[in-house]
Every structure is written in structure tokens, then in C-alpha cells.
């Protein structure tokens, strides 16, 4: 257990390290001068060469690459991701303000899309080849094909503009509500982004769950379960237990997709999470902030993958470490 977890952990640490290197390299290999990525875009046009030089030395960019790299890691170790150009505050602070909203949105969408995706996918697999299965498969694939920003705009138009049922913007009400009223307001503002993001990921889970259960139903142990006299419920339990294994891993691995989806969904609903922050950073060319957000999301996704790996043996006894085989 420990060695397996340790090996996996090292693997993910390596990925994170690569992400860190990528972050270091991007402003230095991208077209243009690194200083362009550090100065406010309004000012970048009319700075004198001397100011440019000052900016470079301020950020240590005139040093040699190894020295810069070393400084970069020292800063990272101190939790310093640089200054946000737009907010003129440390990137870490800006990120800390936003992370809870995204965690809530992505976490909720992960739970909901897994739940409904598995329910629908399993129901389809049991009726595979029937009209109900074909209908569900087709509709889920169409919903899956709708870009979340389009779904979001549609939902917003129908529920906020036309029906005036739900608020359009933001996560917090402007009024100073507190306690239960505040929680209600927050929840109300969460509904549309959450539904949009859930719909965007439902199809992935559904297709995996369906294919996985269909595969399991063909296995010999299902036949044996029938032969020993189990009823439909008993057989269902057998097959579904095993079909859940790939669903679980793929769901968590797909967290990367979900996090990306959050970027566009938050943009549509002006939901103040990391996704909207990324959008704003792109628009205002706030590169340190953009990189910080990327790093945070990458770390979160890798952590989720790691957790999935650690949970895997609980689901699949075949990879659990046990005593030697009895021959």
C-alpha cells in the first residue's frame, strides 16, 4: 500500500514539477520580451528602454537563466507566486479569495454529474439495444455536444431573463443578508452555473458507465450468478459493483475537463471563481495571475488524481496487496 501510494505520489510530483517548469519557461520562450508580461498592458507601449530595464532587474529577469530558475523555486517555496499586475496584490492572495467558489462549483458538478451519469448509464446498459437505450444515448450525446457556454447562455436567458426566476450574475447578493437568508441567496446563485457545468460533464460519465456495465454483463461471472439462481437484483449488484471501477477513475481523471469547463461557465455567469479570474487575467494580460491560477488548478487536479489512485484498491481487490498465492 505504502510503496504503491508512494510511487504514484512521486509520479504526480513529477507532473507538478513539469507544470512548474512550464510556468517558468512560458514567459521566457513566448514571443516578445519577458517584460511585456510583467508590465501593465496600458503602460507597456510607452515605457522607455530604461524603465524596461528597471522592470527586468526588479523582477530579476536580467540574471542568467539558472539563477532565475533558482530564484523562482525559492519564491515558490515561500508561497510567492509574484504580483498580480491588475490587482497590484500578491497572486496567492487573489487566488485565495476565489478558490472556494470554484471548489464549490466543481465539487458540486462532479458529484451531480457522476450520480446522474451513472444512473442513466446503468439504466441504458440494462436495456441496451432497446428504444429507451437508443433514445437516452442520443439525447445525452447531443447534450454533451452543446458547449457549456452555449448551454449557460440559454439557461440564463430562459430562467433569468424570460422567467425571472434566478439571478443572472455573481455568487453573492448585493444586499447585506446574513445567516440562512445569505445561504439561500448563495445557493440560488449557484444553481444555474452548477446545472450548466453538470450537463457539460454528464455525457462523459454516462458513456463510460454504459460501456462499462455492458462489458461486465458479458462476463462469465454474471452467467454464473444467473446459473446459481440469483434474481435480477442479485445479478445487478454483481455487475454494477465491477462496472463502477472504471467510472470512478475516469470521473476523477476527468476533473481536469471539469475545471476547464468552470472557466467558461464562470465567465458566462460572472461567477467569481478561478475561472472568471482566468478570463479576466487573459483580457487584462495579467500573466502572473494567469500562471498562478493554472498552477493552482493543475495542483488540485493532480491531487484529485492521486486520491483516486489511493482509493482504487478499495474498489478493486485485485490490486490490493495480499499474502502470497496459494498454489
Amino acid at each position, binding site marked *: 500500500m505504502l510503496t504503491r501510494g508512494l510511487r504514484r505520489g512521486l509520479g504526480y510530483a513529477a507532473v507538478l514539477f513539469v*507544470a512548474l517548469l512550464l510556468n517558468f519557461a512560458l*514567459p521566457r520562450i513566448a514571443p516578445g520580451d519577458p517584460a511585456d508580461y510583467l508590465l501593465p498592458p496600458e503602460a507597456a507601449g510607452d515605457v522607455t528602454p530604461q524603465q524596461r530595464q528597471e522592470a527586468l532587474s526588479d523582477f530579476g529577469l536580467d540574471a542568467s537563466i539558472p539563477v532565475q530558475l533558482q530564484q523562482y523555486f525559492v519564491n515558490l517555496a515561500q508561497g510567492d507566486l509574484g504580483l498580480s499586475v491588475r490587482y497590484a496584490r500578491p497572486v496567492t492572495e487573489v487566488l485565495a479569495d476565489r478558490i472556494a467558489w470554484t471548489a464549490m462549483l466543481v465539487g458540486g458538478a462532479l458529484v451531480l454529474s457522476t450520480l446522474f451519469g451513472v444512473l442513466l448509464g446503468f439504466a441504458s446498459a440494462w436495456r441496451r439495444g432497446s428504444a429507451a437505450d437508443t433514445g437516452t444515448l442520443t439525447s445525452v450525446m447531443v447534450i454533451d455536444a452543446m458547449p457549456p457556454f452555449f448551454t449557460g447562455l440559454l439557461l440564463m436567458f430562459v430562467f433569468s431573463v424570460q422567467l425571472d426566476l434566478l439571478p443572472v450574475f455573481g455568487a453573492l447578493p448585493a444586499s447585506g443578508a446574513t445567516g440562512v437568508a445569505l445561504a439561500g441567496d448563495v445557493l440560488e446563485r449557484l444553481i444555474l452555473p452548477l446545472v450548466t457545468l453538470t450537463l457539460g460533464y454528464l455525457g462523459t460519465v454516462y458513456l463510460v458507465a454504459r460501456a462499462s456495465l*455492458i462489458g461486465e454483463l458479458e462476463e462469465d461471472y454474471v452467467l454464473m450468478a444467473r446459473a*446459481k439462481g440469483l434474481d435480477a437484483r442479485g445479478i445487478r449488484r454483481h455487475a454494477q459493483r*465491477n462496472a463502477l471501477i472504471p467510472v470512478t477513475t475516469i470521473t476523477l481523471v476527468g476533473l*481536469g475537463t471539469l475545471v476547464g469547463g468552470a472557466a467558461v461557465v464562470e465567465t458566462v455567469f460572472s461567477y467569481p471563481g478561478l475561472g472568471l479570474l482566468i478570463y479576466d487575467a487573459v483580457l487584462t494580460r495579467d500573466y502572473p495571475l494567469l500562471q498562478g491560477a493554472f498552477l493552482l488548478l493543475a495542483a488540485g487536479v493532480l491531487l484529485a488524481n492521486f486520491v483516486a489512485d489511493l482509493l482504487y484498491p478499495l474498489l478493486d481487490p485485485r490490486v490490493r496487496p495480499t499474502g502470497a498465492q496459494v498454489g
Partner: protein
Amino acid sequence: MTGKASSTGRRLGWIGAALLIVSALVAIFAPLLASHDPEAPSGAPYQSPSLEFRLGTNDVGQDLFAQLVYGARISLTIGFLSAVLATLLGLAVAVVAGYFRGRVEGPLMRVVDLTLALPFFVLVIVLAAFFGRGLLITVVVISAVLWAKPARVLYSNVVKVREYQHVLAARAMGASPQRILGRHVVPRLTTLGVSQFVRTANVAVFLEAALAFLGLGDPTRISWGSMLFFANARSAFLTDAWLYWIVPPGVALTIVIVGFAFVGYALEERTDPRLAGRRTRPRTRARSGDRSETERPSPAPQAPGTVLEVRNLTVRYGGEHEVCAVDDVSFTLAPGRTLGLVGESGSGKSTLAFALLGLLRPPAQVLAGSVLLAGRDLRTLRGPEATRIRGRQISLVPQGAMSALNPAYTVHRQVSEAAALTRPSSDEADARATEMLERVGIDRARHRAYPHELSGGMRQRALIAMAVVNEPRVVVADEPVTGLDVVTQGRILHLLLELREQLGLAVILISHDMPLVARTVDDIVVMQEGRIVESGPVETVARTPRHPHTRALLQVGELRPLRAPESDRSGVRR
């Protein structure tokens, strides 16, 4: 029914192809369809649809219809180019890592895994933010992130292909790598490569739109994503123009993405026909549905002194190649007796076994005859009634001990849940399971083991415990010792006979191994191509075989290899 169900994937595939073709035609003939420049203001802002502006105009007076039509060019070009680039890159990595192996394999595949582990969507945004917004740059950025998936999928296929006999042979004969790759390896990757291409195109179209929607698209070209970007940035839904501004590009994107998704699904179903929800090929190893439509007159009473009587049973496989797997078979089984059912692979003996238990599934179908057990015709039983017979009256010891046990549950649990069918409390069922497992010779310490932790012989013992736990009248043992070593074979058969005596079971032993069966059973039935060619007490049949096929089976047995010739069967499955 089966015919209709089979075409789900194919139908979706054609629909998807049609959607893509229409979109491509729109993109190609955009100048003919649109009469205005998509990027220049050509009328007053916020116009309602008219003959001139079929979808009206936006806030700066651009023709929304022209934008929609020209937008198809961007989406399809970027989707197509990115998918080509990413798939080719993936293919190259897969072939180099998978075929040449050596020092490149490990590091290369680690890079693939690294790329797969990163949140690709956010990575695309970051890369696009740094590297700019042109069409080609977008293509490169998207492919740089998407190549890893096709690489991973194709790699696992290269690993499979490189072990094929003819590839190994070509290598041994000194064929050049180029020749082996060109003639043997890459052609085998075509189907998978095409389906990976389609999948990648699907994601690429979406990514381009998402980038454009976030303001990272090519600023000089209007695409569907950037139409939505402007609509969102300028709050289009607060105006009446939203219907013509937001819905058309959104629907267009959905059409192209779903087109790729449908085609991708159709290709996937071709490589994995199970997804279609029916068997596309009839299998020699049968387990398929029964219950023919025709009403039959209730059969004559079961022959006295028998526990099981099979009367004129006929099973057919429908589908493209119609096969009569069991043809007019009749025999009887007396309580406490052991009947050997012998024949070579494909003689219909396994189909017969599944028919006895009512476990046939389409395309297999019982056409005629009856199976009488304890005075009831099993063929007339439906649903829950048939379920109650299985395990309690007639049960199965299957072949292939590994796959017949659920890998996720301990053997004790799997025996216990069978025992629970006839016992009021789970404690009693657990106790019974423990008792039976010990009786078949599995040490108490191993009861909580998972199937993969047990040897083949132990697994087969667990399956026997499962089959007899409810003391059925008849046990059908389908090749119960195939694949086990000779010593274990003897022990397992001995156990089966012992249990037969202790529990008063009647046993049907199905095997291709005539000498083995002859040593074990009381009566023999010899099958060939679905028919019974000879039957009788074992002494008679084994000592004075009348039918040439029986003689052949007896002789083959003398040259019998340790492992059964089962490869032809497993080749047909799936």
C-alpha cells in the same frame, strides 16, 4: 428486434456523417450563401431578420447570417487540422515507443502520461494567452495538448500488434523496420487511428470555440465562438437580438461536435460490437436466449425413474449464419447417476448445457422439444419461476474458473449469497457457505480470499461449492477440469463424484475428453454437429463403440495434449 437494435451505432454514424458533410458544404460555399462581408458593418445595428439579413444584424450592424456561414470555415478548419496534427503526432509517438521500445519507450510514454495528467483545457488557455491568437497558432496549441490521448490509445495497440505471429516472423526473417511498420503494424492501427482522429476533432472544435469565447480566438476572423464572445460581452440577451445572435452559432457548434461524436461512437461500436447491445456473430459457445414464440402442447409426463428427461430438444442460432447447434436431442438421467456428454468443440454440448439451465440468450433459441425436471417442463417457466429452479433444482459448474467468479467479492461471500436463497437468515447462509467450502477442500483460512488469490484448482472447488450448496437434483458440469493439470483434474472429478454420492445428485459431465469421461461416468452420450450419434452405458460405448466418431474420440484421447484444444472457441468469443 435484433436487427433494429444492431443499427443504433451505424445509424448514429450516418447521421453524424451527414451533419458534418452539410457543415462542410456550408463552409465551402459560404461566399455563395452569404451576401455580406461577415466582418464589416453592412447595415443598421440590431435589425430583425429580413430577406437581406436573414438572421438580422448585431450591435455594430454586421450580418449575423454571414458570420454564421463563414464561422463554419474556422470551426471545421481548426477542428480538422488540429485532429490531423494531433493524431499523426500521437501515431508517431505510439509507433516509436511501442515498436522500437528500447530506451525511448519509457521516457516517451512518461511524457504522454504527464501530458494526460495536466488539466488540458486550462493548459490550452494558458498556452493561447502566451503564444497569440492566429489560426495556425490555435491549431498548434490545441494539437500540442491533445496528442497524448491518441498516443496512449494507439501505443497499447502497437504493443499488442508487435506480438502477433506474423510480425514476429517478419522480424525474425530480417525484414526492415520500415517494411514491418508499413505492411504489418500501421495498417492494423487504421480503425483505431480514425476513431481517435474523430474524437480529437470533436474536442478540438470545442476547444477552438471555448478559446474564442474567452476572447482568445483569431481577432481577424469571426468564428462561432467569437460570435458568442461578443454576444456575451455585450449582453446580447438584454436585447431582442439574442435569438439570432446566440442560438444559431450555439446550435451550429452543437451540430458539428455531435456530428464528430456520433461518427466516433459508430467507429467505437465497430471495434467493440458489444456496445451495440446484441451479438453480431453467432457463437459456437452458446449461452443465449430461449423462449420461442410458438405455443406448444403440454408434454407427456416425464419418464418414471428419471430426474431429468430431455426430449427432442432443438436449439438454433439465428443471425447471419444460421446454425442448428442442438438437433433433436433426447436422453434421460436417473437420480444419483453420472452422464457423460462427449463431443469435440462445436458439437453443441455447451449449448445444450445452457439450454438445460434456461440460460440461452439471443441469437440462440430453443426451437422445439422439452426439458423435464421433477415433472415440470423447464421451457414453460418464465422469469422468476425459472430463476427459482436454477441453483435449487439444477445448477452449473462452468469452465474457466477464473472468469466465472466475481473478482470483487470473496469466495465465501459468493457461496453464501447462493446459500441465502434457500435460508431465512444470513447467519445460516454464512455457516452453510463455510461448511460447503470446507467440504470441497478449501481451508478455512482461505474462505475470505478473493478469486485472484486462489489457484485454478481452488477456484474450481469454490465453483463446485457454489453449485451444490442448495443440494440441487442435477448438476451440469461443463468442462469442469479443462485447463487444470492432470493431478488436479483427477482430484476435482473425484470430489464431484463424492458429492454426488453424499448429496444424492445426478451429474451431467460435459467434456471433449472421452477417456477421462469414460473413467468417470455411468452413461455416455456422444454428440457430433448437434446430434447424438451414440449413447448407452459406459462399458458398452467405450469398449465396443459402434459409431466411427466415437472411435475417433477414443483414439484422439490417447494423443491428448495436457491442455485442451480450446483456442478455436475462444477465438470466436467476442
